[in-house]
């Protein structure tokens, strides 16, 4: 098993390198330069050019990329053009906010989504099933920011009971986390339902029933354990993608999270920050991927067998 884990971690390195190459290439295509971005409109062209030289902005692409890779291997991810601070310091300031949002919404979404998904699978075509499927599809069709606006109009402007900005107080969390949680729950309901339906039809469920096993145990032990694999994948992946993906929510509720941080960095062509951010998010993504795969092994012995082979 450990051999497998080490193999997977080693595999992450080429992927991260590949990501660095691709993002570096794309970012080099973006117009504008760091000198102008830092010195702003007032600065003279000479001053801008001098600063760009310092950053090695005018070096040929391969040289720039080479230097960058060497720096990374030395663990130096460089300094943000804009704030002149090491990139990870700024990122780490923003990380807790996004982490709080993602984890909270994931928890609530899972707590709501999975049980409803199970119930609507067990009582297929019941009122609950039809309504929960409709609800899940409806939520999946609503643009997050539109829902955000509507809630702000409703709760912040008219009823004035919830703050519409940031996460100063716990009240600030209600709307952003609420929206993300419903979205999470919606996708989990549909997934759990189809996954459970798939399992309920299996022969071993009928065997269990023929053994006189209680319905509750059939649903929550026999069926759910088997249906967990696709669910674990989605939950694991949505955590990984959540870190970079909360941009829209952050924009609507003016939350200084990783999403807006990356968005501004890309906008202002702050290459060191973009590179560090993408590598960081990709590393987390690959780690989540690995954890999910290991969970497969735990959940399904057949897969575990493949790992230790």
């Amino acid at each position: 098993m450990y051999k497998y884990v080490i193999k997977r971690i080693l595999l992450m390195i080429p992927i991260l390198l590949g990501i660095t190459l691709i993002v570096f290439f794309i970012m080099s295509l973006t117009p504008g330069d760091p000198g102008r971005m830092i010195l702003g409109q007032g600065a003279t062209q000479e001053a801008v050019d001098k600063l760009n030289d310092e950053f090695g902005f005018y070096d040929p692409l391969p040289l720039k990329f080479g230097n960058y890779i060497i720096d990374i291997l030395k663990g130096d991810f460089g300094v943000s053009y804009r704030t002149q601070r090491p990139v990870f310091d700024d990122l780490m300031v923003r990380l807790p906010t996004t982490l709080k949002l993602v984890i909270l919404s994931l928890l609530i979404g899972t707590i709501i989504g999975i049980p409803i998904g199970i119930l609507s699978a067990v009582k297929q075509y019941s009122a609950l099933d039809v309504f929960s499927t409709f609800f899940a599809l409806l939520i999946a069709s609503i643009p997050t920011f539109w829902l955000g606006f509507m809630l702000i109009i409703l709760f912040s402007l008219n009823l004035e009971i919830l703050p519409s900005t940031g996460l100063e107080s716990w009240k600030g969390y209600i709307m952003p986390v609420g929206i993300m949680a419903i979205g999470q729950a919606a996708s989990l309901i549909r997934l759990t339902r189809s996954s459970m339906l798939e399992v309920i039809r299996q022969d071993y469920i009928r065997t269990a029933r023929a053994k006189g096993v209680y319905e509750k145990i059939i649903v929550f032990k026999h069926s759910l354990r088997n249906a967990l694999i696709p669910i674990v994948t989605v939950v694991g992946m949505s955590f990984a993608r959540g870190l970079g993906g909360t941009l829209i929510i952050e924009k609507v509720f003016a939350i200084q999270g990783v999403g807006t941080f990356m968005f501004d960095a890309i906008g202002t062509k702050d290459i060191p920050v973009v590179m560090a951010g993408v590598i960081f998010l990709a590393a987390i993504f690959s780690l989540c991927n690995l954890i999910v795969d290991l969970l497969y092994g735990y959940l399904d012995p057949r897969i575990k067998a493949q790992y230790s082979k």
Partner: protein
Amino acid sequence: MTNKKNKKNKNKVLKEEKKTSQLKEIWFRLKKNKLAVMGLIILLILILIAIFADLIVDYDNVVVKTNMPERLQPPSGKHWFGTDEFGRDILARIIHGSRVSLSIGVIVVAISVFFGCLLGGIAGYYGGMIDNVIMRIADIFLAIPAILLTITIVAALGIGMTNLLIALVIANIPGYTRLVRAVVLSVKDVEYVEAARAIGLRDGRIIFKHVIANCMAPILVNATMSIAGTILSAAGLSFIGLGIQPPNPEWGAMLSGGRQFLRVAPHMVIFPGIFIIIAVLMINFVGDGLRDALDPKLKD
């Protein structure tokens, strides 16, 4: 000669019969799902609106022409959905916007499915080095959060419709490559592919005609769902300012344009939002219905 032709026609007829009956079967099952039927009807209406937008509303002097005295009016008899900050009728702009918004989803998914099948097919069918290379590249793209990848590409190529499409396509291809490869792997060793190989068909035909044709079901379902997803992400991108440039009235752009007037003229945000929801919801219904219809195991 004729005999050979007749035989060919006969085959064709046979195949036709088989295909129609298959389609009839799917249609028959789809019809049972009331939500899917509703989805189809409303989608047809939206598509008709998009096609005949020019007849319904004159583009130049209603949709684009500014008329400042009537700006920011709430919904009224004259303007059912009210007017925007340039005094243009929002209903008219939604009608024309449907053309862009709906086509974004379809175009992006069509292209990504094409490349997905191409890459996924090759990777799945040949395996070995090619498979490894293609899949590693796909992993790389999948590891970057989709929204950040799209933003970076749009920032690089510049804001505009075509660049938005390119960005969305690039973000979608890896997903489809993986889906098609998985399906191809499951179908690859089935007997009829062996048979096709045995009678000496060229690999290209085998991959596309036999293998991929048979994985149309999961691809079709997934494509429908991601048309809905693409429309949403295009609206999202417009919201953060990277979407369609004025004056063409795409729904997402209208939403982000109206954001500034949220308190004074909420109708500018509500109605385009509702149309996005309706379009995406209906596509999801159809997708859901298709999945049940195409997946025989999931019968009643």
